[in-house]
């Protein structure tokens, strides 16, 4: 049985994902997510009690390299793509209120 996605749950998930939906979009996403959960619930038909999860796709372990210091990009370059910045910092809306 699919976990029913309702408005409250969508609001919670949307907050976690830092997304927001207006009412019309919210109805659509509730509908889409419920359909997708019915679709993926098919996995519960398979018995996986004694199966270890497959987490890493590579057979390599502990691929290490020397921890050398090098500068790949400068501060100026790092700031170049920022939508708002000054000469040294990314700029964001004020997060500390005046007393």
């Amino acid at each position, binding site marked *: 049985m699919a*976990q029913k*996605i309702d408005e409250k*749950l*969508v609001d*919670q*998930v*949307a907050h*976690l*994902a*830092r*997304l*927001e*939906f207006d009412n019309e979009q919210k109805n659509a*996403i509730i509908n*889409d*997510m419920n*359909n*997708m959960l019915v*679709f*993926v*619930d*098919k*996995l*519960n*038909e*398979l018995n*996986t009690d004694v*199966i*270890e*999860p*497959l*987490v*890493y*796709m*590579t*057979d*390599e372990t502990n*691929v290490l*390299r020397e921890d050398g210091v090098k500068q*790949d*990009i400068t501060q100026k*370059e*790092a700031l*170049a*793509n*920022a*939508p*708002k910045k000054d000469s040294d910092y*990314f700029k*964001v*809306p*004020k*997060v500390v209120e005046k007393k």
Partner: protein
Amino acid sequence: MIKYHSLAAINADLQSGKITVTALVNHYLKNIADKKDYNIFLEVFADDALAQAKLIDEKIKNKTAGKLAGAVIALKDNISVKGKKLSASSKILEGYTSLYNATVVERLLAHDAIIIGRTNCDEFAMGSSNENSAFGNVHHPLDESRVPGGSSGGSAAAVAADMCLAALGTDTGGSIRQPASFCGVVGLKPTYGTVSRYGIIAYASSFDQVGPLTHSVADAALILETIAGPDEYDSTLSQKPAQKFSEYTNKNPKYKIAYLRDCLEKDGLDAEIKNKMLATIEQLKADGHELTAVDFPFLDYLVPAYYVLTTAEASSNLSRYDGIRYGYRSKNATDLESTYKKSRSEGFGTEVKRRIMLGTFVLSAGYYDAYYAKGQKVRRLLQNKTLEILNQHQFILLPTTPGTAFKFGENSADPIKMYLEDIFTVQSNLTGIPAISLPLGTHSNGLPYGIQVMANKFDEKNLFAFADYLMQKK
């Protein structure tokens, strides 16, 4: 100028002086301009490509040219080229310019390939039709009312329409092979851990691989050989040196090949594609190869497992788009939280948000075990069964796509219907094995379609040999 189908043919004409690299680049630029309305390229690097062509023409004269001299290559718009815009066909990367080259780009350039531009794709490589691009649909080169496939739709269309010799795409669940099938070109998804993902915009990191789209198997092998191998910027790579894939040989061996009964009996598989599969099987048998029908009872679990795991990885990977460090920032934001929420909600398209939401849900407290951990266990089951088949057989033969290129809008109303387009391609991404789509079929509707071959991990060399054999027999 003729349409070249291999670098070898280009090389021969470059050596004899029949053409120059400059003339070749101009030929491709003209084809791009003539079919501008097909919306295949998001940006053409005309000046850079011509400047580079001039240098390489000099190198050829001086006999110092690299092995990819004369190869003009297009890149999917999720592969970084220093100093060039990069968008993943998303509004959220508005104004973004790459600060460095992807490792694959460094390696192509080091061997004198020319990068001709960046191609349209589904937003963040999420889609099977290229209809999810923020910059509009790509039209199929043979029928403009149809999709080229996706997500590397622009890359496949560019090769098919003779706008470049080859292209790079990325394949998370079929995004190279499905458009290759629709557009009639060769498309390879290498073994996971073969090609560096450094400088590639991530979708689902345990699935994503970069691979070539080409006319010939030889070119696919040569390009893979160039871009593969260890890279200190990607620790998920195999640490063994890249194999000499281009030196594959076919000394007329007898192959042991499995085909999946469940795939051939799948509802929705086009009757002509099914018949072509059966005819290919019979032909191979007649040529002395050993073909065995095997059961793969997990076919209907592949796409559900794929969507649980890839959306989870996507929700994590795409959390970096915050509207602060780069890309689009909403003008409607009032505080820090609304900067995140409004920038992301206005910047991402519908399909990307749908996947982030599902992925966030399956990773959230209370649902993680039921969905995400379950998906990882099913992934192990799928891998065990697939490798079991490949222990007994060298290759698995199956269709690439259930049908040929469809019309715009045909699958858009129902996301799940669109997801099932990937039913034959996601298996290799879920299990990490290599797979190639070969343009072996032409439908009575006039459109091409591919047949797919999967092989054991890191067995690309034999895969190329068999693929080349199939192409020769076409």
